[in-house]
């Protein structure tokens, strides 16, 4: 953890806060709850008590604004900087500003930022903490989409705030009200404060362990999805991706997180539309579009947007044919053909895979077009097919691309 220069703190235990305005993205009551819960996180590990006021000057003034908003740190539109807050002090000291150009949400979703999580981080600044370089700590500078239903502060956060204010006295203080509120708002039903149990030996908080990393040359290796990307070929399995590049001889093996931290691993399918520098990832009934590392805004979208009937809840594999500008989607023993030019599913589909792809009589796990051939992966085997001649060329191990 770290504190601001000269470690400014509030020289009192009773700190007031006021919510100056609201985001239209959420119900006012949800905004108030998120803020109150964020304060409760800090009051539960310090002697501090937070009281909401409804008028006049409070120690911590909370507001939503976009772009330039009266201080020297303008916001930057969607993404990038989400919010900022000032260390304890007079005037703007302690104040927390949230970028209204973001989509604020009550829960952790793909399509927005969880207000409770961001507010808890910013209020850490309002109390005097600066950033932590401990991955998983609340005061880590980067937003980590986390399940907040039973959110616990990282030991690093607790060490930092208690270095400034010490531990709580008897029981965690809950945010209280100073005046009869103008609008009746329900006090957040918090569990009765329990005696602060001596914390077990802090376990290092690490992201949930990804499944065991598969061995590149395991003859039983199977894949979830395969796609090209800017001349490289990416093979996906669970939370891992193998990268085969024409520029380097060895195969790089990474986590999907290291390329797209906000995408959930375990893709069902992926394909590249190379002339648009765009790769689409599919998981269950949603899909995302990325360009390099950047996830395009407005995603995820439902796969029905592509023309699938609601009866299709996920797809097994996808591959784009650069020659015909058609993308083939494989579901069970059938497949669809999608016209990338007209952005619509072609008529007369679905058709049986076996009818048009000789020798492929079973569901497809992943599909790839390379060197003029199609490669269909099923379990630990792949089938090389010349679709012009409608001929199965050969059958190989799925990981034959890894120079085993």
């Amino acid at each position: 953890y770290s504190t601001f220069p000269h470690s400014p703190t509030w020289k009192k235990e009773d700190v007031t806060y006021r919510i100056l305005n609201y985001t239209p993205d959420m119900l006012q009551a949800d905004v108030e709850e998120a803020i109150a819960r964020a304060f409760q996180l800090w009051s539960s590990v310090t002697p501090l008590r937070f009281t909401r006021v409804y008028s006049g000057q409070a120690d911590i003034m909370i507001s939503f604004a976009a772009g330039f908003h009266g201080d020297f740190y303008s916001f930057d539109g969607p993404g990038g900087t989400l919010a900022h807050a000032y260390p304890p002090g007079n005037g703007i000291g302690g104040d927390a500003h949230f970028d209204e150009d973001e989509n604020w949400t009550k829960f952790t979703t793909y399509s927005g930022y969880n207000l409770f999580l961001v507010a808890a981080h910013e209020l850490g600044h309002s109390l005097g903490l600066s950033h932590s370089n401990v991955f998983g700590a609340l005061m880590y500078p980067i937003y980590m989409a986390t399940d907040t239903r039973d959110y616990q502060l990282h030991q690093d956060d607790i060490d930092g705030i208690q270095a400034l204010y010490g531990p709580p006295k008897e029981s965690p203080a809950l945010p209280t009200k100073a005046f009869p509120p103008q609008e009746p708002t329900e006090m957040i039903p918090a569990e009765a404060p329990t005696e602060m149990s001596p914390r077990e030996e802090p376990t290092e908080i690490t992201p949930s362990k990804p499944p065991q990393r598969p061995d590149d040359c395991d003859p039983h290796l199977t894949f979830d999805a395969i796609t090209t990307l800017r001349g490289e070929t990416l093979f996906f399995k669970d939370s891992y991706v193998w990268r085969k590049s024409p520029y380097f001889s060895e195969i790089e093996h990474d986590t999907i997180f290291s390329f797209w931290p906000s995408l959930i691993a375990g893709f069902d399918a992926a394909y590249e539309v190379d002339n648009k520098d765009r790769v689409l990832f599919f998981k269950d009934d949603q899909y995302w579009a990325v360009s390099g590392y950047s996830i395009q805004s407005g995603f995820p979208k439902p796969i029905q947007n592509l023309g699938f009937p609601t009866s299709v809840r996920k797809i097994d594999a996808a591959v784009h044919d650069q020659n015909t500008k058609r993308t083939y989607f494989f579901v069970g023993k059938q497949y669809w053909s999608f016209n990338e030019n007209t952005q619509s599913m072609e008529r007369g589909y679905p058709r049986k895979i076996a009818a048009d792809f000789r020798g492929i009589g079973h569901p497809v796990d992943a599909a790839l077009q390379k060197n003029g051939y199609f490669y269909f992966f099923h379990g630990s085997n792949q089938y090389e097919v010349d679709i012009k001649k409608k001929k199965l060329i050969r059958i190989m191990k799925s990981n034959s691309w890894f120079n085993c």
Partner: protein
Amino acid sequence: FPVAPEKEKEDMQFAKKYLENFYDFKEEKTLFKAKDLNQMSDKIREMQSFFGLEVTGELNHKTLDMMKQPRCGIPDIRS
């Protein structure tokens, strides 16, 4: 990944602004381009070290990707 060429310059500008915002990088308008690039490399090293990335001083894809993550607007390092 291979970087689409027109993006390289754009990425450099983005990185400069990021380092100014969060790592107290000050681009001095010096005649000596090399000096300016060295200062930027130093700041890239600071940022890579903060996030536990391989400290190379180069704007590689992992570094750029980390810069593009949604984050708090408060600097990580301040003078």
